[in-house]
């Protein structure tokens, strides 16, 4: 949803606004002064914990940011789709497979929408899913350890944007294509054939209840429009997922103009339980495919890539009852289901109203076949038949809506740069506050749950401009915290974020902390090259490969003197951190390594591959300040010329022993 187009619309709108000011008396400036108690509301005293975890997408950083609310303090950046030299993510031998795709090793992506796993429509704090938009993937983070544990690639998908929204009990996470592409003739079609040949897909990825393990259960072949955002139904609408669609014009060039022609695009309602019935009845076609499924095993501390070769596709135009379109004004973005599951609020980016659809009216319209026709074989329900009402003149450029537990909705407005609070039942606007600037998504803690937590709304902004000390041409990204406890919203805090915070999810800390892991148990470490104590440390040569089974404990490596390595050898440092205490990682680095350091957590084993390029004695050391004697945690490895025949020797604190 980050586009130059939207920014320029924003600037254009500002110009119109400026022109308006000149021709009439100057409107009163928005009150941006903080009221007196804002500081007290965000103050978390030293040593105290925040009330809420906030998980933001890292946007084009490809990662996930973790913040404490209400302080806005950043707690962690979790590496997901991008290599991270600080933790060795994507550099260590164990984590490299996590970034494998059918295109080979893809070291970066664009992550947009975090989604917490849920049970009975409530965040359960077990996992966080996030999509990769560019090379379509979905990642699963384990919130016991705040690490990425699984990444699945989506075949037959151009741009996984409407993703990874979860169903009420995390039966599925979905992935829908932002870019439709052709699937006939291995996809080698003229772009001008878009209208006839290009199709969208929606992937339904099944999530195992116990392990969280993902599995691409089926894909829907859907009309060739752009799928933007989605939300699963809940409570009364459980069993459905709603997608916003733009470009019903089916433009393939200059979309900013050509995809903005029609008055109405669509919300697509998908009955996934019906789709499951067709799947069980064998109505799917098996398509050959090639996509990576990467899983990190917490016992072997190692990731493996499996290339999956097949996917079942259901063509919705042949399967009545799975998909319906509902007209929706002007290029909708947000498509949000209220806590009762009855109301679906759509946000047309260029629309002047917010349509609120009723789920029960939609079902009645389907039963009565109250259709205005079809679009590519999918019935189009009459707008009025599904509509509950419209929020009139809410603002300019509505994008996304979340909810509190008192029947109110909070909608972000990109163009008019504000948050508008309105009542879901009455459709009346209650309050509006400015954002700084150009808000995209917003986030109410558990704001998409059956029982929202409420209390705050967090604005995820696209532009910061003059809000922070400048840092050259590139400025910080930012979010803002507002209190929604009173009738009026109140700005409390600005805080910087990493990447672009497209969307964020938040829930009370205790929901996540139930799953807290402090360190990995050494006795459960099944790494192929683990050394569980110093006696097991050894060096083994196997042709040109040298495997160093090493240990780290405050404050030494075992072994820390190694000789007998030659130029051009593939040297694998398998480091096991023997500590069994919280907050005692060890780092490992060696001069000239072409990758990164390792950061090894207590009980974990990680491997750095090093190919020495010259003879000499190379120092290695611990990079994470581990103890009073951290600076002494160092060692040497001697490299002899290629073609020489040195004896392999290793030791710590005593005479070297020769390797067997």
């Amino acid at each position, binding site marked *: 949803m980050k586009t130059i187009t939207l920014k320029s619309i924003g600037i254009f709108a500002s110009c119109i606004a400026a022109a308006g000011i000149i021709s009439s008396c100057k409107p009163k400036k928005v009150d941006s002064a903080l009221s007196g108690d804002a500081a007290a509301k965000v103050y978390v005293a030293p040593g105290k914990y925040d009330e809420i975890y906030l998980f933001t997408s890292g946007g084009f950083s490809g990662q996930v940011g973790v913040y404490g609310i209400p302080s806005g303090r950043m707690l962690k950046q979790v590496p997901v789709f991008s290599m991270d030299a600080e933790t060795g993510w994507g550099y260590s031998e164990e984590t490299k497979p996590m970034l494998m795709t059918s295109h080979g090793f893809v070291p970066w992506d664009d992550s947009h929408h975090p989604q917490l796993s849920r049970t009975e429509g409530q965040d359960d704090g077990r996992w966080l899913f996030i999509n990769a938009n560019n090379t379509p993937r979905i990642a699963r983070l384990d919130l016991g350890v705040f690490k990425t544990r699984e990444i699945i690639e989506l075949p037959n998908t151009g741009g996984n944007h409407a993703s990874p929204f979860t169903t009420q009990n995390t039966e599925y996470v979905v992935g829908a294509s932002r870019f439709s592409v052709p699937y006939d003739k291995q996809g080698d079609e003229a772009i001008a054939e878009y209208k006839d040949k290009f199709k969208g897909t929606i992937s339904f990825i099944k999530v195992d209840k116990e392990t969280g393990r993902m599995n691409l259960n089926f894909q829907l072949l859907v009309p060739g429009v752009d799928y933007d955002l989605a939300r699963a139904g809940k409570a009364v609408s459980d069993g459905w997922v709603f997608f916003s669609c733009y470009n019903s014009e089916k433009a393939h060039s200059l979309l900013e103009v050509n995809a903005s022609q029609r008055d109405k695009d669509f919300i697509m309602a998908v009955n996934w339980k019906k789709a499951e019935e067709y799947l069980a009845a064998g109505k799917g076609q098996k398509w050959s495919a090639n996509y990576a499924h990467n899983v990190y095993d917490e016992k072997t501390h190692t990731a493996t890539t499996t290339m999956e070769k097949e996917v079942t596709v259901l063509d919705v135009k042949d399967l009545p009852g799975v998909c319906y379109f509902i007209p929706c004004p002007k290029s909708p973005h947000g498509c949000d289901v209220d806590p009762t599951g009855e109301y679906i609020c759509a946000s047309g980016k260029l629309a002047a109203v917010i349509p609120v659809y009723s789920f029960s009216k939609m079902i009645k319209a389907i039963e009565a076949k109250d259709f205005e026709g079809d679009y590519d074989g999918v019935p189009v329900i009459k707008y009025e038949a599904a509509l509950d009402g419209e929020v009139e003149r809410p603002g300019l450029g509505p994008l996304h809506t979340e909810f509190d537990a008192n029947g109110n909705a909070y909608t972000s407005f990109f163009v008019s740069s504000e948050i508008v609070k309105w009542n879901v039942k009455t459709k009346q606007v209650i309050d509006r506050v400015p954002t700084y600037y150009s808000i995209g998504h917003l986030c109410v803690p558990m704001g998409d749950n059956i029982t929202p937590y409420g209390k705050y709304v967090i604005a995820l902004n696209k532009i910061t401009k003059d809000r922070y000390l400048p840092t050259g041409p590139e400025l910080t990204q930012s979010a803002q915290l507002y209190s929604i406890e009173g009738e009026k919203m109140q700005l409390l805090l600005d805080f910087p974020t990493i990447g672009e915070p497209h969307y964020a999810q938040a829930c009370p800390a205790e929901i996540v902390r139930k799953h807290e892991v402090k360190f990995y148990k050494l006795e459960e470490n099944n790494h192929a090259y683990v050394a569980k104590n110093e006696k097991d440390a050894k060096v083994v040569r196997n042709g040109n490969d040298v495997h160093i089974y090493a240990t780290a404990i405050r*404050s030494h490596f075992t072994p820390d003197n190694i000789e007998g390595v030659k130029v051009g050898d593939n040297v694998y440092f398998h480091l096991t951190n023997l500590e069994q*205490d919280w907050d005692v990682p060890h780092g490992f680095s060696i001069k000239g390594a072409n990758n990164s350091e390792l950061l090894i957590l207590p009980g974990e084993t990680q491997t750095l591959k090093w190919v020495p390029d010259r003879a000499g004695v190379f120092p290695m050391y611990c990079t994470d300040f581990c103890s*009073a004697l951290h600076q002494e945690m160092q060692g040497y490895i001697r490299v002899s010329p290629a073609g020489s025949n040195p004896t392999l020797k290793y030791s710590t604190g005593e005479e070297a022993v020769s390797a067997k």
Partner: protein
Amino acid sequence: MKTIKPFLRVVLLLCAVAMVASLKFPVWKIILEAPQYPEGLKMEIWSNKIAGDVDKINGLNHYIGMGVILDENFPELKIIPYCVVIMGILGLLVAATGKRWALWLFVIYQFIFGAWGMYRFWYWEYEYGHNLDPHAAIKIEGMAYQPPLLGWKQLLNFVAGSFPDTGGLLVIIPSVIIVLILLYEQFFRKN
């Protein structure tokens, strides 16, 4: 000679049961607190093993060259469970017979066993606190690291505390009661 009052015999039986139950709980605890360990580290001494954060404590102790605390270094851990069971049997004997001589035997046994246990505890504290590796990373002239027998003591950046744990209380409190019963039976009981 009269037998012990029936009510007190029941109390004695309960005391014996509590003493045997102490086998299922840590007898003593050594607590270490430091700026880096606000939550504290706890070493639990059971009748037959050392438990709690003993691995973490060993990891820290290597800086000052203290020996590694391992169950097999303490032969007492093999003997004490039997001593406790014998104490329980003596208690049963007293309760069953109600004889004053048996009560004397019970109390004397307790005193010998208790004194020996505390001596061995002090002995090992002294040994570990004083027998330090001369090559230790941290050496401070004249500094020993013997934890207190009972109470608190500052040892470098750590505050060390030594107190009876659940199992210890299950022995100590009944011991006091038993002594009081003996005093009563021997000196204060009116005919």
